[in-house]
């Protein structure tokens, strides 16, 4: 359990730092931005899989007696899931350096996909900040257990 939590924490740190760099495409160049976007999509799926028990548990008893904080966290999780889904899909449509035509993706109205990609990215980024703040308690506890005591 301790190892799983440490792994989750490490993964979360990677996600946050990657996300900050991804929000500034000129910092890493278009190619790295697109490839990093695909990698973070995979990391994002891992994050959901690792926290699936919590998602399932709260989904089943959302309308029952639950702390307000937990409900808020759940709603934010749903919003982030939708946000990242839009970001990843729109990113695939506007990709310039990665050829995704084999997936049957044709850009069509590029302007629309760029608008969706940018807008949703900014909003989702703020929601991630709130989500991280709400889960700070877990982060601190996991760090305390991870650091070996003398």
């Amino acid at each position, binding site marked *: 359990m301790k190892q799983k939590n440490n792994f989750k924490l490490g993964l979360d740190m990677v996600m946050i730092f990657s996300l*900050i760099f991804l*929000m*500034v495409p*000129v910092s890493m160049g278009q190619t790295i931005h697109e490839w990093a976007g695909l990698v973070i999509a995979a990391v994002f799926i891992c994050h959901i899989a690792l926290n699936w028990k919590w998602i399932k548990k709260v989904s089943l008893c959302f309308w029952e007696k639950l702390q307000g904080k937990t409900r808020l966290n759940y709603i934010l999780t749903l919003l982030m899931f939708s946000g990242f889904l839009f970001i990843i899909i729109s990113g695939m449509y506007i990709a310039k350096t990665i050829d995704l035509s084999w997936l049957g993706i044709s850009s069509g*109205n590029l302007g629309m996909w760029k*608008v969706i990609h940018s807008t949703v990215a*900014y909003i989702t980024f703020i929601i*991630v*900040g*709130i989500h991280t703040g709400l889960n700070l308690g877990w982060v601190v506890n996991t760090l305390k257990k991870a650091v070996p005591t003398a």
Partner: protein
Amino acid sequence: MRTKLLDIFVIIIILAAGMYSFNYLDYVQKMNPQILIKAVTTEEAELGEGFHGGKGVFPGDDGDHRAERGLPEGGGFHQREGDAALGAGMEQVLAFAGVFAFTVTITSILDRKRIHRNAKLAEIDPKS
């Protein structure tokens, strides 16, 4: 009393940081609905280079001449006049930190109040 004053002081500081980061959403607010509608409903061939190419959305609009002014590539939502990548990156970090700190403060204040309220309830009725 001192705790309450400290709470108020912290909230003011965090609100200031939070307001900066919400001002960051000015990027989103700057998206004129007309431009959004145009981008969504117009075929790509009829648009300019688009938001990322440094040119305008509308046909014949060549944007803000970024290359001529020696500014880095990119336009629209990700770059403002004179922004370097580092400056833009710092904005993202500050926005994230502001929202994060704001959430943490509000959460800890609400948690403390809940613990205090439960402790008082336990004093009144130990069985509850």
